Structure formats: C-alpha cells, structure tokens
C-alpha cells in the first residue's frame, strides 16, 4: 500500500512529542500503553509515512482503537487535528482492504444500506422493538455466537407513537423573530424522537419558526469516523442539498440547528470533507458556516425571549444537576459555556460541576458496539465521577452519550435521570407553550 494514501505526512509533523495529551486520552488512561495515546498514534502514523513501519493489521488495530473523542485537540499546544488525521488514516486503511468478508458485509449493510435509509431504519427499529418486547433479542447470542453478543444491550426502542418524524414546519410561539432549519438525523427520530420534538418546542418557544426538511437524513459522521469517506461525502451532498433552500425571515440562509453534537461537529467540517470536489466545495463551505449547535443558537437568543420561555416549572428536574460535555461539542466545536448558561436560567436549578466533565463517556459513535469492553471500562471512571458529584440529573447533548449514560446509570444502580439539554429545557418551558405529548 502507498503510505501517502494512509497518512497525511504533513499533519504528523505538527506533533513535537511533548506528551501533554497523554492524560486526557481515554484509551491511554485505560491501558497505559503509549501506542494507545495520541502521541503514540501519531508516532506510528509518521513511521508509516516514512516507510519505517508497515500499515498492517497491528497498525490498523491501534488506529481503530481510538475513540475519536478529540480531547487531545483541546490540550495540544501544537494544534494537532487528530480527528481529521484519524479519519484520513482509517479511510486509507479501509480502501486498502484487509477486513474479513463478514466484517465487510456488516459494514456495507450498516453504513451503505441501513443508515442512509429512513424507511429501513424505521423497519429495523420496529422489528427490534418486537424482539425486545417478546424477549427474542436474548436469543441472538445463542444463534449468532460472539457476533450477537451485543444484541441484548442494544438500546430499547420506544413505541411507534414516539418514532414519528418531525413536522416540516412548526410555527413560533408568538410573533416569529427568526427561522431555523433543524436536522432530523438518522437514529435520532428512531430512538430519540422525544428529543427532536423537545428541540423544536424549545426553539419555537424562543420565538423561532422551525423547518425540518424531510429529505435530509443521516449526515454521514459515523461513516467518516469509521473510514467510509466515499459514503460520508455522498451523504454530505444530500444533507447540503436538503437544507439549501431554507431562508431566514430576512431572506438570508437560515441557520441549521443540530441537537446531536457528533453530527454538528461533522457538519461544521463539510468544507474540508468536500475540499477536493470542485462542484461542491463552495456549497459545502457556506453550508458549514450555517451549522450551529442547539445550545449555541439558543444561548445567542435575546434575553427577553429566553426569560419568557424558561420562566416555568423548576421542580421538573431533580437536583443537583450536572452537565456532561459531549466530546464533539466541547472538543469538536468549542462549545462549553452555552449549555451551562442555559441550564442556569432554569428557575431554582441546583447545578454542580461533574469532575473531568470533558472526558469521553466511551460511547463514541458506534465504538460502544464495536468494543463493548473498552467502552464499559471507560464509562466506569465517568460513573465514579457522577456518583461522587451527588447529582440526580445528568444533562448531555448527543444521542450516543445519552444512551451510554443511561446504560451505565442502570448498571451502577444510580438514581440519576439522564436527559438531553433540549428535554431539560422543555420541562422548564413557561406555561402557555405546548407541552409534551
């Protein structure tokens, strides 16, 4: 294999080997092994680029063990872009082959068939719910052996009434002062329809008219993180096209509000993803400039709208409340203060800080499915921090994190409710706004 297809040599030269990243890396903390930390991974990439090392199975394993949480980016004085480097390397490794047939088949089915299709996702969700209700899901490990082991721990699928898509238009409460476009997502409508609806309700309560283009589905972030860059680009083009026509009240392009940190972080980088695509590069850049996280957009709303919207019921959240920074919000998008300031607006809230709240919970997209043991071990450290905080409510802003924490809280027997920021704010909405179904 040509090393240049696997490693961007120039990026590896940014690392000066200082090691300040080590302590932040979840896999280094877990194993203590240099190659499981950012500095070691870059060292290996550079060794491949300079022809000192073969990009074989052992190398691929070290690259695939990274969570892509990008915590190292937040502490790297030299400005390493680990997320982009890792996506490039994984892309090169996947293109080079080397996976067994069943792994290729599973990836094709998951990335190319299932995630891009809303209809198929809906069907699978319905079947999974049936299997969960009847208990049939417990048979999977018996029928499929090790490959079916993860089936019983798949997230519980909510009833069909919760899996309905968002309306294409939702009116603002009162006189509209702006218009936004909201991303549906792929697994969000299936597993977290209630979060999507809370997102829309809160935005509407803050005086925004909400559009939700039904043509847009998966943004392709899971594809990019896992080395399927071709599919990631195809989904990016689709997502861009779907949101392109939506304008603000002034006629300018409307902001695209994203309530899933992983998707938002990825969509903000569409410009780089499509940088080699002459036709799409400019469109991708102007699209990316419109992408905002839910908390980012809401926190920028004028005070009077927020005060009016969030002056409602405070007792709906059990205190103390902690905010868990999703990696792709704090490290990927640099959004840290906004969610906290929004939570602090809720009347009577008792918010405390979660220790090391910027550390990954181990969910990391599909990492928890691919490497359940490592993922659970990484979560354990976070659960200790949660227990020590004394919190009764944990608020986060990414579907993967939300599922991971829910699973962990159950396993650890903690009395903590796990909510998305939009759900937490929805509960605090002032009377007079439409309430949850």
């Amino acid at each position, binding site marked *: 294999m040509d090393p240049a297809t696997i490693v961007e040599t120039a990026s590896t030269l940014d690392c000066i080997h200082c090691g300040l990243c080590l302590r932040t890396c979840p896999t280094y903390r877990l194993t*203590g092994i240099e190659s499981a930390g950012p*500095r070691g991974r870059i060292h290996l990439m550079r060794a491949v680029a300079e022809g000192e090392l073969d990009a074989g199975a052992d190398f691929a394993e070290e690259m695939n063990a990274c969570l892509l949480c990008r915590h190292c980016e937040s502490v790297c004085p*030299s400005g390493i872009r680990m997320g982009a480097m890792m996506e490039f390397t994984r892309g090169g490794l996947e293109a080079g082959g080397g996976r067994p047939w069943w792994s290729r088949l599973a990836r094709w089915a998951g990335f190319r068939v299932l995630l891009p299709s809303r209809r198929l996702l809906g069907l699978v969700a319905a079947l999974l719910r049936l299997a969960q209700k009847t208990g049939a899901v417990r048979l999977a490990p018996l029928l499929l052996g090790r490959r079916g082991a993860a089936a019983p721990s798949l997230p519980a699928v909510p009833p069909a009434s919760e899996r309905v898509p968002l309306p294409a238009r939702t009116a603002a409460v009162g006189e509209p002062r702006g218009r936004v476009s909201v991303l549906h997502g792929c697994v969000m409508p299936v597993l977290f329809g209630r979060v999507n609806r809370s997102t829309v309700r809160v935005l509407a309560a803050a005086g925004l008219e909400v559009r939700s283009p039904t043509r847009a589905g998966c943004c392709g972030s899971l594809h990019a993180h896992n080395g399927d860059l071709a599919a990631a680009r195809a989904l990016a083009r689709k997502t861009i096209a779907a949101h392109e026509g939506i304008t603000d009240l002034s006629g300018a392009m409307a902001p695209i509000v994203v309530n899933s940190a992983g998707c938002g972080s990825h969509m903000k980088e569409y410009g780089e993803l499509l940088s080699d695509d002459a036709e799409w590069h400019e469109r991708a850049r102007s699209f990316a400039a419109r992408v905002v996280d839910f908390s980012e957009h809401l926190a920028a709303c004028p005070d009077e709208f927020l005060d009016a919207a969030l002056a409602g019921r405070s007792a709906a959240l059990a205190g103390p409340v902690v905010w868990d920074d999703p990696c792709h919000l704090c490290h990927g998008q640099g959004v840290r203060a906004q969610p906290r300031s929004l939570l602090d607006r809720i009347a009577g809230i008792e918010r405390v800080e979660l220790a090391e709240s910027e550390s990954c919970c181990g969910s990391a997209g599909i990492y928890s499915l691919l490497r359940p043991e490592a993922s659970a071990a990484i979560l354990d450290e976070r659960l200790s921090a949660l227990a020590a905080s004394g919190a009764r409510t944990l608020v986060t802003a990414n579907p993967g994190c939300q599922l991971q924490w829910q699973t962990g809280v159950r396993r650890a027997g903690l009395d903590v409710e796990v909510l998305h920021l939009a759900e937490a704010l929805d509960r605090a909405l002032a009377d007079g706004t439409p309430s949850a179904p």
Partner: protein
Amino acid sequence: MDAALLAALGAIVGDDGLIGDAVRRKPYECDGLTFHKRAPDLVLLPENTEQTVHCMRLLCEAGVPVVPRGAGTGLAGGATPLEGGVVVGTARMRRVLEVDVVDRFARVEAGLVNLDLSRACATHGLFYAPDPSSQMACTIGGNVANNSGGPHCFKYGATTRHILGLKIVTPEGEVLDLSEPEVDPTGYDLVGLFVGSEGMFGLATEITTRLVPLPEVTETLLAVFPSLEACCDSVTEIIAARLEPSAIEILDRMTIQAVEASVYAAGYPEQAEAVLLLESEGSAAEVGENVADMRAILVRHGVLEERRARDEHERARLWAGRKGAFGAMGRIAPDLYVADVVVPRTKLRELVLASTRIAHARGLTISNVFHAGDGNLHPNISYDRRDADEVERVLDAGREIMKLCVAAGGSLSGEHGIGLEKREEMELVFDPPSLERMLRVRSAWDRDGRMNPGKLIPVRVCMELRTPPPAPISKARG
C-alpha cells in the same frame, strides 16, 4: 527475546502489561528528545511493587538491560533504550495511596501524574510544589529520576526538597523500603542519593512527598517589555534586591507568538519583545510589599505595560500559556531541541544574547522561554530531524551553549537531567575523579550497569573504568 522468559514475564504482568509486538513497541523508541531512537525488545507495565519485583528478578537473572519510563516527557533522552532491552513503565501504577493532612505528606505510586497529586490534596488546602511545565502529563516517578524543577521551584526548591521517602525495587529485584517519611534523614541519605539518579539505581514504585500549604494570597503579574535585554536586567535587579517572588519566568517574542496561536493563548501581547511572568505568594501584607518593590524595578527598566491576574481563572490562563510553550513550538518546526543550562543570574542578558548568536551563526531558529529566577535558561532551537545536516548544527550549537554557560560559572542542567543529550558534556563540569566517584556510587546500586545503560556518565569514562584503574581520591568539584 527468550520465549521462556517472555512467558514467565507475561505470567506476572498479564497480557495487558506485556508489549512485545513491533508496532506497539515502536513508540517507546524515544521520549521528548526525538533525534536518537532505538526501540526496546520488550515493554512491561507492572501494576504494583510486587509485580515489579518479580519482573526485575527475572530480568536480573537473564542479564537484560532495563530502562525505567514514566510518561516519556523527558527532554534529555533519559527514557530512550539505547541498548535495547526492556522498558519498565509505571503507567499502570498511578494511585494516591495516602494523604496525611496533619503531617503534610502523601504517599503515591510512581506513575501518578504530577498535577493529579496537587488536585488530590487541594481540598485540604495543600499542594505538591514542584511544577514542571509538563505537569499535566509527567509522573512523580519521572520527576524523582530527574530531580525536576518548575517555575515555582524558585521559591520551593526542586523535587529533591520534596521527597521524604521512597520504595525502591533494586536492579536485583529486592525491595528497599525507605518509604517512611524522613524529615531529617539519619545515616546515609539514600533517598537523597536516589533522587536525580535518572533510572540508573533502580526503580522507585512508591514515593512519599512533602505537601505544602496553599498560600494565603497569590499575586500574578505579567510585565511587557520592549526588549529581551531590559526584561533580563530587571530580573537580575529583582534578585540583587533580595526580593522573594515565588516564580520569575521570561518568554521571548517568538515563543509568545507560538503560544498565542495555540489553545493556550494567554493574552500575551504578540508585538512585545519579551514578557516577564512574576508571582508572589504569602500573607496579604508580604505580597503587597513584595509586588510594590518589584513594580518599581520593572518601571526603572522601561516596562511598557503591567497586567495583574484578577482571579484564579486569569492566573491559570497566564500559567497555561507558559506551560504550553514548549509544545507550541511545534508550530515553528517539527522538532525542538530544548537546552537546559543554568547561568549566574548576573549574566542572564549576556548569555541569552550569546546563545542567540551561536544559533544564528549556524543558521538555526532559536527562541527563549526560561526560569529566569533560577538562572535556568532554555534556549529552544527549532529544527527538522529529517535534515541530517541541520541536526548536526543543532547539536553543535547545543554543545557551544553548554560550554559557554559552564565557562561563565553555570552548569549543564537545571531540571531535565543529563540523560543521553548532555552525557559527554559532563566532562566540562566534572573532573575525572568526580566522574569516577559517580561511577562507583552507581556500581554500589547496580553492579552490572544494567539499569538505563549509556546515560549520564560519558562513554570514555565508562570505558576506562571497565578496566578498573587505580582510583586516587582527589579534590572533587561539583
């Protein structure tokens, strides 16, 4: 490596603690000094003293070289396995074992990250004083090996002043338990001897450290200067006036620009030629007086602007910028040579300028960020290790700078240790009898010279001593 030995070691540390494959061994080929690389034959990551003991016994029987490693943030090649052999890392030993709030000490495992120790005792109003710039990554064990310093060591002293006890696994795999806190060592001070031994005497697995009360008041000042010279001169005068700040750091223009482009941007003015970071600690009255006296000196030297950290957040930001400075130099070139010389503080200006001339004469890019209060200079030379000629020029410049500083009455290392980088220059500072005496001390700990071979003692001295010469005791310097 012998299959039976591998199996026996694996049985001790388990699959997770033994790293044998070529890919995962490769990143252990160097530490923060990247121009000399050699991968170990094996890496072991024991989880406790007991596992370390069993590993060390087997390695002793097999006669294999052993290189201890903490976080690999060292800048002198101390963790590079020059002769191959086995790297024994402390990355899986990082518990805080005990914090004694009343007697003010902590007992920790060697792989604990420096910053985590201070965090663990902050709620008790205590902290661990030595604060190397890499403190968010480096380990207490590594600090012990190198007798590390840091900005606040100006006031509190380097690591050796803060180590009260050690549990050491000897090269033969015996436990030397000196972990009871000794405030005033009785008999030979073995703990004192071990601190700074650069992994050549054995491997410390548990460390008992002093804890210091957090100061009542801390004042942090950033002083902006129109020239590096004026900045240096004001430090010389602060020292001469016997003022007692807790830290005095200088950053030059290139360093400031690299830091300001990074996530550690601290608001240092990018057009300044140099900034001085000053901290004063103590009671409100002491600090007030101290700061007023220092400010008068700054004004005399033409300070352009002074900024005071208004709260903990601003203070943390000013320090984060300083501590991220080394890594930020990655923005200038792929590699950085960090010299670590000490000079008399009356000669700061002269030697900083001379170092700059030495680098420029060789066509090299140099920047300066240093612990001015201690006279501990870090002339930083940016380079690209792929350019063999440039590497040679960097090494040559490094040697020249060391020679110059030693000749001016300074020394080779403020805090990074000698390791591989400054090994040959030891002869500039020590005469043969002193070096021989060091070698004999080393032999007393490690008869076979198996621990971290090839470090600290110049190769020539080692060679000569392998055929033991008559060793008269003469007046030693050092």
